[in-house]
């Protein structure tokens, strides 16, 4: 008996061991190795001379950055492709022209070899200029191609020293390419001017700006940004709205991106079948220094120019986007024109404005979602199924019942009197 039990236990263990042994192999094989859709992050590190300053936890900024990088490299999720680019790492001289071209990718994008990446970072020592603009351009170039989300994480301690190429303008140009690239900036103990510049870069691409004073803040933040890239996000399809409805692109349900200048109108067309409901929402991003009062208007217009329904929103103060939406349920058709689709024009306009010094090109980023779902189950009455509620309802019903009862009794009494009952 005991032997048999032992045997069973042994078989069980063997089976478990086999399963365990097989499982990791299976998982490894199932892991997507697709280079096309992999999320990509390029860490862009400033290695200019000023990184020598010892003001982060008593260590030099460079040492803090290296330590943070090591921690980040250890924590990067497997599916993320990580690249590392430096700026100002190699040319120690005084020639501005040469110094401003000094940006190099020290670790190429691709499947991460943690040891190699760490070695590449370990060799760095603070050297030269701070060519942020060229570095951003080069990093954007590295990240080209593929369908996954893309992010540049820029870590620097000083403003760009390579005017006239304004890194903020560079960032806006990168964003305008519509490749869904975000630039997040981290400033190591920066001054006001640097902070402004880094914030401007982040704002232009929908990224974030962080000011770092401690090593663990730096590694924590970079880790968070890398993880954020790994999360799957719906990527909008670039489209271009027209100036009037007749030339507008026909949109199918989905997520779209576009650009709209100050005061410009954009038209899109959507075909709605009878019995369907069109849902559209739009958000316009404030990616530059705009005036403090702004608004957005989304209208559903028939081809003849009649407004069906609109969504509008206005706001003031600091904001990233302003958004609105609308619903247009098209009534079910009569029998004869069941397939007659209606073309609905969506008109997007904004009331952003900006000081004259702010560039108007390219336009503000527009995000448009279009959904077509079955129409609502319409109301025949305001109340749910025409049902009532409350003491007045009870009183009214009881009173009606009482009156009916009284009449009933009175009638039966009448019949008894006339002697014709039962």
């Amino acid at each position, binding site marked *: 008996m005991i032997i048999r039990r032992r045997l069973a236990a042994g078989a069980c263990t063997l089976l478990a061991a086999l399963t365990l042994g097989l499982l990791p192999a299976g998982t490894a094989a199932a892991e997507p190795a697709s280079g096309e859709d992999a999320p990509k992050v390029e860490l862009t590190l400033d290695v200019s001379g000023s990184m020598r300053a010892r003001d982060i936890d008593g260590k030099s900024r460079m040492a803090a950055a290296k330590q943070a990088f090591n921690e980040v490299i250890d924590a990067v999720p497997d599916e993320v492709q990580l690249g590392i680019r430096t700026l100002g790492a190699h040319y120690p001289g005084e020639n501005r022209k040469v110094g401003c071209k000094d940006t190099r990718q020290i670790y190429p994008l691709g499947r991460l070899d943690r040891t190699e990446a760490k070695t590449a970072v370990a060799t760095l020592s603070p050297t030269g200029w701070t060519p942020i603009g060229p570095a951003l351009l080069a990093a954007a170039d590295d990240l080209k191609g593929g369908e996954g989300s893309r992010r540049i994480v820029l870590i620097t301690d000083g403003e760009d020293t390579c005017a006239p190429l304004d890194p903020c303008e560079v960032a806006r140009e990168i964003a305008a390419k519509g490749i869904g690239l975000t630039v997040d900036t981290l400033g190591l103990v920066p001054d*006001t001017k640097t*902070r*402004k510049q880094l914030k401007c870069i982040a704002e232009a691409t*929908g990224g*974030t*700006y*962080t*000011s770092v004073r401690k090593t663990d*803040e730096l590694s*924590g*933040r970079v880790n*968070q940004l890398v993880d*954020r890239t790994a999360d799957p*996000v*719906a*990527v*909008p*399809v670039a*489209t271009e709205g027209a100036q009037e409805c007749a030339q507008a*692109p026909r*949109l*199918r*349900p*989905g*997520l779209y991106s576009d650009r709209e200048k100050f005061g410009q109108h954009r038209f899109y067309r959507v075909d709605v079948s009878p019995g369907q409901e069109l*849902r559209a*929402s739009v958000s316009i991003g404030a990616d530059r220094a705009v005036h403090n009062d702004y608004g957005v208007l989304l209208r559903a217009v028939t081809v003849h120019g009649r407004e069906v329904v609109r*969504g509008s929103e206005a706001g003031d103060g*600091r*904001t*990233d986007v302003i*958004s*609105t*939406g*609308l619903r247009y*349920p098209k009534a079910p058709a009569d029998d004869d024109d069941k397939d007659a689709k209606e073309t609905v024009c969506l008109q997007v306009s904004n009331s952003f404005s900006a000081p004259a010094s702010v560039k108007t090109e390219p336009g503000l980023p527009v*995000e448009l*979602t279009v959904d*077509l779902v079955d129409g*609502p*189950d319409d*109301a025949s009455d305001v*109340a*749910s*199924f*025409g*049902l*009532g*509620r409350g003491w007045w309802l*009870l009183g009214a*019903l009881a009173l009606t*019942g*009482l*009156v009916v009862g*009284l009449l*009933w*009794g009175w009638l*039966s*009494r009448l019949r*008894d009197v006339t002697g014709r009952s039962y």
Partner: protein
Amino acid sequence: MRSLRTAFTALICTTVLAGLTGFAGAGTAAAESPSPDAGESTSGPTQAGTGFRDATAVPPGSAATAEASSGDYLYWAFPVDAGQRPTFKAEVTLPQATARHGDSTWRIDVYDGLRRRQPCMYGMQSRAAGQDTGSVALSCTLRPVRSLADPWSDHPLPGSYYLRLTVTDAPEKDLGLPVRARVEADLKDAGGAEAVDGTLSTPLVPGASAKDAEDAEDDKAAEEEGGDDASPGPSTTRQTASSVEPEDGWSSGWWSDRWIWTAAGGVLAVLAAFGGRALTRRPQRPSRVPPGY
């Protein structure tokens, strides 16, 4: 005999009425206390999105936390069903007072699944924090969510609700400092008073048609005149906000306490009818004859 019957009828009447009153009272009480797991929220996601598209979905009954930089725009998405009245709460732990240079104003905004901003009926939606305060608490109570509203109104409808948290006013120098945020949605039952007729076919969840569009629209696009009419394909990835649903799925919206009220009214009417009849009827025949009804 007659008086006995009358007494009996009266007794039934009283019982039903008492029951009804009790029910109504219970209903109100239930509406006032938060749903069981809203108060003691479990730990939810530990991050926040940066926009509508990547808003972090928070399952019902849990609270989300996030480490961020002041100046970030933080987005979360909560599912809210018809008949619920959500109260969104946020608490921000500010950076150390020594690192700050002045007052800052924090604000939450709530947007529905169509990205329409929803007004708050109650709650401090925006609050200024002095330089020495450690944290800011914000809250926003929406109108009760109805199952349907006409397209020209922006009344809250079932679907995803986005919560955006940001600093609206702070000294330039204070942006980019580390902050911690914690948000949750408190859902209360709005009761049958808010039950309306009609329902949306699908809740207002972003990308609701992304899935069926793929199947249905493929052949449609083919026969369209000028097929290359700049009609890019729909995005296949669903937005993250659509990944959470209410605990028991989206309600079909047919139930409300109006059924009980109306049914009770019907019962009451019948009882009142018998009572009325008993009052006006002629005195009964001798008791050896069985009652006529």
